[in-house]
């Protein structure tokens, strides 16, 4: 008997007005696995990611995290929307890292990290601070705790953002193009932190354009285009021997 997958997307769809962003997406990510989602911009990768922690509502299909329905409760044959509090409870175990970092600019790096543990988990400040300092060390920024985001480089900001997400001790980490807003020379430091995280056994879903990272770290890669998963599989197969024409066309441009 196999364990419950960390994330199960079962034919989910999502549209903004008449724009069908996701069209019947089915994907699975096992616990401890790194799933990379690649594809051209506008293919629905980020939207899919945002559905997993219910920042967006799906219109059709079912989405489960650890076997639990995201955003809804099933009673009989009807779905009931969760209250904001219950939705927040589901998000506690899911960390998210954004393309544009979204650090809180009016707080120092350390304050950014301790907010959610203090406010959501009611962890005392001293304890949260100790843990935050550990995380700052882990992302290589032990000496930057008192810096405001505006005084950190993009790469440093993104590493603080990763530490902030980790402070909630998530079971699953979502990365939404974490290196796309960075200067080329700063990409490596963020990818290194993510590699270390993957090695430590964290379940990660990463939307990325970094094919080198995907090849090296991912357990599986999904290629999305036009709101559908065109092809998915282990990196060696998908990158080395793509079956679909669209995948081949995309890879020929980015590899």
């Amino acid at each position: 008997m196999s364990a419950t997958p960390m994330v199960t997307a079962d034919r989910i769809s999502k549209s903004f007005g008449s724009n069908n962003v996701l069209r019947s997406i089915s994907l699975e990510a096992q616990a401890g696995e790194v799933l990379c989602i690649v594809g051209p911009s506008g293919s629905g990768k980020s939207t899919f990611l945002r559905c997993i922690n219910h920042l967006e509502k799906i219109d059709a299909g079912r989405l489960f995290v650890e076997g639990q329905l995201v955003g809804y409760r099933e009673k009989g044959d009807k779905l009931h929307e969760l209250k904001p509090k219950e939705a927040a409870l589901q998000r506690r175990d899911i960390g998210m890292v954004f393309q544009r970092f979204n650090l809180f600019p009016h707080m120092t790096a350390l304050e950014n990290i301790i907010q959610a543990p203090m406010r959501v988990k009611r962890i005392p400040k001293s304890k949260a601070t100790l843990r935050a300092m550990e995380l700052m060390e882990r992302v290589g920024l032990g000496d930057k705790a008192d810096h405001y985001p505006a005084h950190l480089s993009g790469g440093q900001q993104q590493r603080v953002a990763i530490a902030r997400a980790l402070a909630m001790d998530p079971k699953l980490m979502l990365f939404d193009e974490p290196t796309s807003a960075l200067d080329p020379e700063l990409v490596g430091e963020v990818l290194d932190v993510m590699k270390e995280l993957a090695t430590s056994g964290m379940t990660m879903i990463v939307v990325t354009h970094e094919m080198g990272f995907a090849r090296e770290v991912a357990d599986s890669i999904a290629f999305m285009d036009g709101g559908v998963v065109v092809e998915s599989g282990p990196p060696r197969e998908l990158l080395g021997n793509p079956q679909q024409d669209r995948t081949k066309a995309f890879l020929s441009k980015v590899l």
Partner: protein
Amino acid sequence: MARQNPATGETEAQGDAIVAVPLRHPWRISIAVVLVFLLALFIVDASQRPDYGWAEVGKYLFDRRISQAAWVTLTLTIYAMVGAIILGLLLAIMRLSPNPVVKSIAWLYLWIFRGTPVYVQLVFWGIVALIYPVFTIGIPFMTPWITIPNDVFTNLYITAVIGLALNEAAYMSEIVRAGLLSVDEGQEEASTALAMSWGQTMRYVVVPQAMKIIIPPTGNEVISMLKTTSLVAAIPLSIDLYGVSRGISAVTFTPVPLLIVASIWYLLFTSVLMVGQHFIEKRFSRGTGRRQAGPASETDPAVAAVTAAPLGNDLGGKG
């Protein structure tokens, strides 16, 4: 030609320093001279004109009645502004709410209180105790269970605070709304993704950042309110700075000196408020990088785009 020495990085020879005749601005100087002359003329004339009654000004500037009235003006301003800020915040959040009922109520409030003159509103609150002499609780059109005499609007000071606060709240709500809208959406998203509730997100993430946008115009409103308190004469309440000055001058027949006395007090208060506003603005610009000059304030362009929140463009919108 100047060449860089690759070893030292210094220029071997420099171009000629520019020695040019600076552009003259003869009109600036002549206009300034004329204006200073006219000002001096006015001051000399005013100091000799008996109507100004400078002796009277000196006599009443620190008169006990005047300083007490100045205190009334100050407390009126503070109470009215505190009320206006709380109600304004509530109205702003109501207008941003997805609930159409709540939204409409806030809109209606704004429409009425911003659309009629504050003077007219104050006259109305002054006579409201005559229209509603008692508050009753019970089933409409039946004998009421409880009858409470209207003590709120018979107290003219409280009436003044309420009247000023209700009017100001309409303006404050627009200021607060512009501030809340100016905070980047990614902030709320990041906070939500960290499992913080809507209330926590507002309190710890959105409102502190909105303050930067809210505070400067609020300071303006405080200064404006300080002067608007002189309109409480419409209620009629006459224990404020302007009311008392007018009362004294009605007895002494020296209106101009007492107007000057009142103006000096108003100016003193507004000057202090301006200094206070400066420090509060500094406090709330934390982490923006604008506070510290030099290399520390250098930011990644992408970051600058995030932190430089777009200014709310709905301020003074259709109300």
